[in-house]
């Protein structure tokens, strides 16, 4: 069966935005995992070596994780 070149034309329409979304979603999923591990490490290190800066570092790590999850949700919803 012959495949008409125009029948695959929809691929060119969706490929750029779909590819971008897939890349961004995958990147942000991995990034969120990185942010979770970072938060966990900060918690463990702050317990091992408590300093005056530890609460601030924990706060930054929580905000960092929250922002990465929020962007992931926005990307899934907006693309």
């Amino acid at each position, binding site marked *: 069966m012959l495949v008409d070149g125009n029948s695959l034309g929809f691929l060119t329409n969706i490929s750029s*935005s779909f590819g971008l979304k897939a890349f961004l979603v995958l990147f942000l999923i991995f990034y969120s995992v990185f942010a979770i591990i970072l938060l966990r*490490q900060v918690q463990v290190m702050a317990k*091992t070596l408590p300093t*005056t800066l530890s609460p601030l570092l924990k706060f930054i790590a929580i905000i*960092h994780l929250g922002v990465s999850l929020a962007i992931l949700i926005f990307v899934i919803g907006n693309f």
Partner: protein
Amino acid sequence: MSGSRNIVPRPIPKRDIINLVNEEIFHNIHSKNPLAMFAPQPVGISFEIQEDGEKIILLLRAHLITLIPPLILVIFLFVLPFVVVPFSGSIFTALALTVLPGQFLLIIVSWYLFVFGIAFFRFLLWYFNVYLLTNERIVDFDFKGLLFKSTSYAILRQIEDVDPKILGFFPTFFHYGDIIVQTASEIPEFVFEKVARPDDVSREILGQVRHEEGEAPGEIS
């Protein structure tokens, strides 16, 4: 003839001056800076396995100058979109036409989140990679990667040799280097990497070892 004689002050030997300065730095200064790379008797810092009566004499981190390469990387990544977008021509023009302004904003925000993540991670690597000298032992907190953390220590009585090393142009210029501590413990060698004033620190470690050897076994002072 008068009985008074002219008293000529004797010059103080250089070694005594160094000892006096070290005594002043290590025992009379209490560092309150939480970001210090060289903190004698740091205030507000303790550690999980600290014993009663054990006090921190010195807290060390890698010299601040070692943060310059990651800082350059972060600055490079920060300005990259400003450099790449104007000079990339048709690729970004095509991309800008396929995505909405809100989506383009999300791409930019994702990029700067990534840059922030790298900066934060490199800072944490520096901040939590700590070496401690207490009146009982040396402690090495290693935080060398996302999934690597270890704590090792050796009591002062087990220390056999302390060897400071300053090698290279930048270490000589900024006065930092490695201190290799040979011990009789399970971990035969501790390396304090890229710490400031390695010679003074080595002298202080040896001073504490001598002081510890003068104590009765089990005594904490």
